[in-house]
């Protein structure tokens, strides 16, 4: 199906409304008809009608209701035309079968729109689907991105993404992955799966400036989720984590290279986002049901709270990482904790902690970058340079590689300076380089 949203770039008002209501409309149609493909086709057809009408008549006061009503009427017409449809149509009975005039507002009669979306989010992120399929479905069905936009986000062709979505939808249908909120017992784990997908979407946007829009998509999805599951503190935890990370984006790069947290111009941080993030973290602390996303948000909140790098409360950050590691004992958490230890106990302690996890993270550029920074603080220039070289070899983005090349160049300059000083005066000694937390960037 042609992505209508992408095809009408000249009308940004209508386009943003489409993106906004796509997920709501598909979710409601799925509830009414129990079929994802049918729902999507009908919503696309409603967009075609809307695109003609809204450009001349203007956007109606309740665009989502308008789209749902139009899509429902289209779906009923489509069902009546096909033999399989007639059968399904008979099974569906009264709820879905009455045609309605545009603007009729009782499409939410069997449950609120947010309930529909919540059900669909759990379907899209069902653990029986592969992660890449979960992400693609979430962006398409809940984020309202066109197939082409989802394809570009993951650097694959539109036809490859179409195939991926078709396969994912085939599995939903063939295996009968349900459209409903999981049972209470399964809910925390299923919610984690949903939150992880959203965070993966965000981080995909962090790693690549060309895909920056994924970050706002992820934040939008998290905002929706917070409303949908008000009793689950990990949802606002994820939202706060992303807001506090997003707030620092304007200061994170300069001239295409990464800027260290230590060197960032903190006046460029987005104060509105930080305030919102801090408020959410405070609420989470009051609820006292800590989880991995809330703790990561709390760590970001401590960073954002500091007026300068030196004013950062590193002891609190280490304590939060200790707590996080007790819930999520992964090598990456251990890595971040080791870097924070470098600020409280010094580079020697950090190096021991890093060496302990190095075998697990040998292919992770940030581990080698952290070792490089730590070795440099310890005055081990050759070992530091080798670690930065390895990090640069593994680094995923141009900004990372530029930053690491700068570090290697600075180390070489340090070496030349040392040689120069020792030539002139045997008594001169090199002042220890300041602490640099690359990861906390």
């Amino acid at each position, binding site marked *: 199906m042609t992505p209508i949203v992408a095809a009408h770039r000249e009308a940004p008002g209508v386009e943003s409304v489409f993106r906004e209501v796509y997920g709501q409309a598909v979710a409601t149609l799925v509830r009414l008809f129990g079929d994802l493909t049918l729902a999507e086709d009908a919503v696309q057809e409603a967009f075609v009608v809307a695109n003609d009408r809204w450009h001349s008549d203007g956007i109606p006061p309740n665009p989502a209701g308008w789209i749902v009503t139009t899509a429902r009427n289209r779906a009923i017409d489509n069902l009546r035309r096909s033999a*399989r449809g007639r*059968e399904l149509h008979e099974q569906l009975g009264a709820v879905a079968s009455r045609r309605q005039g545009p603007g009729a507002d009782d499409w939410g009669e069997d449950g609120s729109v947010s309930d529909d979306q919540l059900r669909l989010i759990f379907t899209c992120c*069902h653990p*029986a689907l592969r992660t890449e399929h979960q992400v693609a479905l979430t962006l398409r069905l809940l984020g309202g991105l066109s197939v082409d936009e989802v394809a570009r986000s993951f650097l694959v062709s539109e036809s490859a993404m179409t195939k991926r979505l078709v396969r994912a939808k085939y599995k939903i249908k*063939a*295996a*009968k*992955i*349900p459209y409903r909120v*999981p*049972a209470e017992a*399964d809910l925390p784990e299923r919610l984690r799966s949903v939150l992880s997908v959203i965070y993966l979407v965000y981080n995909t946007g962090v790693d690549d400036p060309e895909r920056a829009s994924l970050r706002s998509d992820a934040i939008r999805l998290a905002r929706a989720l917070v409303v949908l599951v008000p009793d689950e503190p990990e949802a606002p935890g994820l939202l706060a984590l992303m807001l506090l990370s997003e707030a620092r984006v304007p200061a994170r790069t300069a001239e295409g290279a990464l800027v260290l947290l230590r060197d960032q111009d903190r006046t460029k941080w987005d104060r509105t986002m930080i305030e919102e993030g801090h408020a959410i973290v405070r609420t989470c602390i009051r609820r006292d049901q800590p989880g991995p996303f809330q703790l990561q948000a709390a760590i970001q909140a401590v960073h954002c709270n500091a007026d300068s790098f030196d004013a950062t409360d590193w002891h609190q950050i280490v304590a939060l990482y200790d707590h996080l590691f007790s819930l999520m004992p992964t090598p990456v958490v251990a890595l971040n904790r080791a870097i924070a230890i470098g600020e409280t106990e010094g580079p020697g302690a950090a190096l021991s902690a890093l060496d302990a996890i190095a075998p697990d993270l040998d292919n992770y550029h940030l581990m080698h970058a952290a070792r490089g920074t730590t070795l440099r603080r310890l005055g081990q220039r050759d070992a530091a340079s080798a670690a930065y070289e390895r990090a640069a070899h593994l680094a995923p983005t141009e900004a990372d590689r530029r930053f690491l090349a700068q570090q290697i160049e600075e180390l070489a300059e340090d070496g030349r300076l040392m040689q120069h000083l020792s030539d002139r005066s045997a008594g001169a000694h090199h002042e220890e380089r300041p602490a640099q937390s690359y990861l906390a960037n």
Partner: protein
Amino acid sequence: MGQYLLSVHAAEGEAHEQSKPPEEMQKFMERVTALEAEMKASGAFVFGGRLHGPDAATVVRKRDGDLAITDGPFVESKEHIGGFYIINADDLDAALAWAGKVVECINEPIEVWPFFEMPGA
């Protein structure tokens, strides 16, 4: 409502139940019997059984236009289907809940395969 195959795959040459001490084997059988009673009581149970190993299995395929009967090769040489249940379940979550119980019971991974549904069936 759909039907699902819950299958267990055993590694080739593995006959772990024979190496179990008798009292452990008895407990294992009691767990399996209890689970099957639960499946039957809830209406989920359609059919189930344990299979012989690949030594006893046969493949029928077409070769050069004729039917050829061989004792292999099988799809996966390292593992073979060791036993299965066919169950009724409303949706995948319900089937996965049963699969979870089977895993708890026999301590082997379980694959969940939905049956293809014939239109109008």
